[in-house]
């Protein structure tokens, strides 16, 4: 194995371990969040964003790491995200959690993985068509929210923290 592969494997083992400990990979938790009955996955996800965000911005300010923004290609992001949401609700897993779900014995996630592989192959076939249509509508490129709004990231980070903690308080008060 190359160093890249070893690093990926180690990171993945820790990631999978924490996803399983957080109990966020199960169908009930994924659908529980979409039915707004059990917000465990959002508590987990938003907590990692809050912590990760501060570290990543400090490292970027120090010039150690580079950002990797995904392009805001409006048609692609909007239509793609809506399709993902529809599929997610029926499947009850997302790409990363599906493999973890198999790891904790949820064998029905194997069907989800098979479906996603077919979906990936279908997308590869549709790619030239999508490039000429949906993806050609409007592309704002790889922009960040601070860049788009013209506000410093160090102003947005505390706002994001405050809004998220407010959401956590609501989750706990309502017992979600």
């Amino acid at each position: 194995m190359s160093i890249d592969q070893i690093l990926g494997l180690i990171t993945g083992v820790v990631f999978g371990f924490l996803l399983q400990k957080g109990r966020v990979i199960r169908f009930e938790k994924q659908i529980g969040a979409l039915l707004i009955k059990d917000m465990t996955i959002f508590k987990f996800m938003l907590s990692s964003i809050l912590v990760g965000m501060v570290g990543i911005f400090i490292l970027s300010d120090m010039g150690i790491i580079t950002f990797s923004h995904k392009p805001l290609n409006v048609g692609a992001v909007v239509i793609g995200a809506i399709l993902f949401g529809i599929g997610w609700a029926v499947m009850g897993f997302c790409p990363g959690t599906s493999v973890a779900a198999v790891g904790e014995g949820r064998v029905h996630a194997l069907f989800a993985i098979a479906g996603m592989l077919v979906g990936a192959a279908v997308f590869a076939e549709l790619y030239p068509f999508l490039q000429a249509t949906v993806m050609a509508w409007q592309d704002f490129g790889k922009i960040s929210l601070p860049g788009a709004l013209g506000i410093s990231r160090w102003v947005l980070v505390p706002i994001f923290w405050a809004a998220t903690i407010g959401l956590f308080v609501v989750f706990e008060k309502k017992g979600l």
Partner: protein
Amino acid sequence: MKLKTKDGGWNPYFAGALVGILAIASVCATTELMGKTNYLGASTTFVRVAGFVEKVFASEHVAQNAYFAATKIKVDWQFMLIIGIFLGSLISSLTDKSFQVEKVPPIWRERFGSSMTKRGAGAFLGGIVAMIGARLADGCPSGHGLSGMMQLSASSFVALALFFAAGALTAALVYRRRAS
């Protein structure tokens, strides 16, 4: 606040915060050791696996496909990350005895019965639609939800909001019985 949940898991805020630390460690390690900052993600690997499988039957076709060419069919960092996620979950669930063979989950069974064929068909068809969407949007809840949000990417705010909105609407239609 309890550190353990009723089902024996870890407090989700705590486990989530640890993933935040993992993400920071991971961007440092990938930048240092691979020369390029890599962010956590999952869905690109499904394209690579699909490419590997298709290559067996139609290698010419895969070679000519623009998307497979752009994605590069190889076993890279993220590919091993996905294998690691499976192993990590297996280790965690076996050691805390939460590993459980489940064919049909409770919420699904309540609505559609205990047929594994029905559940399998739902998971399969949902998977096709979700992956087409994830590749079009250029990310899933890992790539957009975690990594994109951590960098305050504009596209990730749009993607995550719509993942949830479309998912919640669909879930309400699929799993909620009409009050009769």
